[in-house]
């Protein structure tokens, strides 16, 4: 398998964030501060690129203050820059680690795989396949993280020809490896819908398109796991409609699909509250009720 080199890179990146070595930029958010690296974040986000390449205060002080943003979303974004993922309990040390939170999918690929498998099990065909919806909404900005299996297959082929290399044995002995790529147990009790919506919004704001699509996937997976029933669903709906422009369909389509698939939602008081408060959502639900296309640009 090809994980060895990948693992090497990922571990190195984790360490860079954890120990702040070579850091040449700080991201501040309230009381927190992340030692980061221009090379890593400026190449991923046009916002950070702009901040560092123009003679503004940020370039001079080397501190970018994101206190105006949601601290949790900022943390997830920073984690994403270095781990290609967020809400992942397997990171060696996390400043904001919440011990109660169980593991999430280890990588986007894994996440995709799980979602597919799950959607089969739960036969959520009615949900208009959230992944397809995500992909359709993101046509302008395709995800940075490849979801295709092709490269993985390729390496598997290579490996199949050399099944008994010592490195393989060595790899198998490594606990970290085992842990990182073991089938993660998804906590169906922790929906994180609000978190994903906020991460989605911050990714959109700062132009981190890989993160945006990852957040959309996670949001879809969470809905697919039945978390629309959770009490945070209405809050998430509100965030979805308030934090991005109307033309951004990434999460909106998922929410609308969930409403269509679950008519029982209208019985919930908290849902009623958010629909009343959020005109964008109310309008789109009205169009759904009329049998019209939800959005026309």
């Amino acid at each position, binding site marked *: 398998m090809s994980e060895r080199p990948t693992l090497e890179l990922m571990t190195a990146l984790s360490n860079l964030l954890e120990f702040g070595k070579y850091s040449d930029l700080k991201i501040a958010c309230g009381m927190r501060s992340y030692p980061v690296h221009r090379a890593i974040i400026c190449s991923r986000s*046009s*916002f950070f*690129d*702009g*901040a560092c*390449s*123009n*003679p*503004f*205060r*940020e*370039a*001079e002080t080397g501190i*970018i*203050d*994101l206190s*105006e*943003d*949601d601290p949790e979303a900022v943390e997830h974004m920073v984690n994403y820059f270095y781990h290609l993922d967020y809400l992942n309990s397997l990171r060696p040390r996390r400043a904001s680690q*919440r011990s*109660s939170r169980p593991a999430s999918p280890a990588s986007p690929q894994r996440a995709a795989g799980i979602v597919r498998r799950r959607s089969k099990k739960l036969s959520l065909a009615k949900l208009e396949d959230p992944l397809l919806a995500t992909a359709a909404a993101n046509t*302008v900005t395709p995800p940075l993280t490849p979801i295709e299996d092709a490269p993985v297959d390729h390496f598997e082929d290579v490996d199949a020809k050399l099944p008994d290399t010592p490195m393989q044995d060595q790899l198998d002995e490594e606990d970290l490896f085992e842990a990182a790529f073991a089938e993660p147990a998804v906590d169906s*009790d*922790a*929906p*994180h819908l*609000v978190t994903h919506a906020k991460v989605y*919004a911050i990714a959109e*704001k700062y*132009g981190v398109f890989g993160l945006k699509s990852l957040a959309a996937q996670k949001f879809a997976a969470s809905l697919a796991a039945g978390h629309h029933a*959770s*009490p*945070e669903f209405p*809050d998430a709906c*509100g*965030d979805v409609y*308030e*934090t*991005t*422009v*109307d*033309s951004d369909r990434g999460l909106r389509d998922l929410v609308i699909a969930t409403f269509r698939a679950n008519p029982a939602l209208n019985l919930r008081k908290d849902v009623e509250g958010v629909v009343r408060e959020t005109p964008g959502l109310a309008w789109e639900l009205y169009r759904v009720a009329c049998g019209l296309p939800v959005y026309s*640009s």
Partner: protein
Amino acid sequence: MIAGRGRSKIRPPRRGIHGGEEIDFEQTWRVIASAFNEIHTKNASKLSYEELYRHAYRIVLKKKGEDLYKRVRDFEHDWLTTQVRLRIQDLLSPNLLMSSQAIGGTTANERRFAGEKFMKGLKEAYMDHHVCMGMLADVLMYMDRVYCQDTHRLSIYNSAMILFRDDILHAFSQDGDSVSVLDLLNRVILEQIRMERDGDVIDKHMIKDCVYMLEGLYEGQTDTAESRLYVASFEGSFLETSRGFYRAESELLLRESDAGAYCRHTRRRIVEEQDRCRSTLAESTTPKIEKVVEDELIKNRIQELIEMESGVRFMIDNDRMEELSLIYELNARVDPKKTELMRAMQKRVVEMGTEVNNAAIAASQAPPPSEGTDKGKGPALEKSLNQQTVAAIKWVEDVLQLKDKFDLIWKNAFSSDNALQTALTRSFADFINASSFPRSSEYISLFIDENMKKGIKGKTENEIDMVLEKAIVLLRYVQDKDLFERYYKKHLCRRLLMNKSISNDVEKQMISRMKIELGNNFTMKLEAMFKDMTISEELTSGYKGHVAQLGDADPKRIELAINVLTSMTWPLESMGGSGDEEGKTLKCIFPPAIDRIKRGFEKYYGEKHSGRQLTWLAAMGSADVRAVFPKVPGKDGMLKERRHELNVSTYGMVILLLFNEIPADVSLTFEEIQAQTNIPASDLVRNLQSLAVAPKTRILVKEPMSKDVKPTDRFSFNASFNGKFHRIKVGVVSNGNKVESDRERKETEKKNDDSRSFCVEAAIVRIMKQRKELSHQQLVAETLNQLAPQFKPEVTMIKKRVESLIEREYLERIENAKVDSYRYLA
């Protein structure tokens, strides 16, 4: 779970942060606008990028993108028109504004400084704008990404660049003036370039920066390469100005300098323009300005240039290789075929070739041409003929020299250009085959003849090779190969029969070279001649053996060396003397002793080859005669019998033997001799001249003593002959290979035409046999084609031959055919 619920409780403040409540657009814009002001005044380091980004982000998120976009544009428009434009206008000094035509009180230097200042200011304004807009665009990134993309607007950066173009460049330089800043900039750049062309040093980097600006801005709304301001506004007038400049310059140069200097200057200009495009303007202009220079300095002038007094003719005559190669290079730039140069070169080749031809004709006619008409002037005639031979050889050498010269030019100056080589070959062929100079075939053959007889003596193999190669080179140019063959055969014939060749090997080498060059057909007969010679040697020795076997040991036996020549192969008609018609029909009467041997050999030969007839050609042979002269008192008073071995021609031998039969004091008249020997009159005259007139070989006494031989002259044995050597060679006048007289040439040509007729007929029959039916045009074309390697027949000759073939029923005309056509009759 608990955490999640807990967070939902703190929702209100979070939503506030994310702009849940309405934001105050005006207030936010004021913040942004003041920040932009700071950016424009280069105080950005105080500003928080994050804050500005956030403001813009929120405005767009609240669907106020359009307002923001408009405000930013207005802000920039304002900034440009109030701040920047003033700064630019400050740079415009009055002498800069004056049009270049009205250049009055200002010196060029002042103007240049003003121009540089203006460019510097403009460039700085642009660079500032460029940098600031880069920063603004980064701040407004979210607007570009969401608002501009959704509404298909130009990005704010591009939009601001258009503003710069309209508000600054297209603005009038001064109120009420109709010249825009852009026009002025173009004018300044053009002026600076003009200065540089005139030899001044200018600030190239500055201009390059301005060009960079013009390349970054576009005319209209689209960003195509063609609509760059540089192309749309500057390049055209640059090319136009340059065209005018170079047109004037070319006129001046043609008037004032020679062609070589002109070429050097032109090449320098082209390199300069290429450099200018690289260092000062844009690379994309290089081909265009090159074309302008090429058009004005070369294409429109090449003819004049080549025909200048110091033009190609002068260069060729003086071997100016460098200048010729410049001309070649320049002409090749504008015309891949190099038409003009080719024409000039061809003209010069033909001119020089014609000079060589005329010189040869003049040299050959130097003494008044009396040859052929007056038979009396033996030695004078010989002299003039020698002169002609010398002229022939000189002609060949001159032509070769000419060829060497042009080959050298071609190699060194024309980079061995293929088309030019073809043209050279054509021109050489033109003058060598010129109708005004019909002697080339003969001259080339004579050149070979001369070398075979004398020239190659003592030369190394390599040198000989070179001589042969030279001959072949010339031969390539000759069109009428059949005529050459005729001459060569004639000359070769004499060389072989008279043993004049220095080396048989070299002769054979020559033949094999010709075989390679002209093909088997051409050399077949020549080779047959060599074969005859070999067979004849065998025959001679065979006959000798045969006679010895007969046992007839006659002490007075005459030895016979004989050459049996195949009559079709050898040009026998040219050996029968100088062409008295009756002479060919007469048979020489040999003295009885000789006649016996003759019959003996005929018998021997008849046994070997039955059915072959031998014709004796006395004119070509020679004989060694042992002569005994009566005793005369020597210096010491002793009487001594003198013996001499005389080498005479066969005719000479026959004549001398006549005097053996009669008493020493009896004389014979010319007519008597002629009657008794049957020797053709002209041969007889020449032989008697050498026996009785030539001072060293006066074996006969002529009465009266004069140079001319008249029919009534009397001849008797010169008993008092006194020779210094034992062996005396009696030369016969005009027996070597000489240039033909005009009459001879006409004859040769006539003979040649006759044999051509056969070739043409044969070709026609061959073609018709294969094609059965053919139109006249096609037949002529094919005939010409088939005969091309040998000669170029005249079309009238082909027509005549066709007529003749129709008469003889080889062909018939096809009735009612649209075009004249013939059918082959089997």
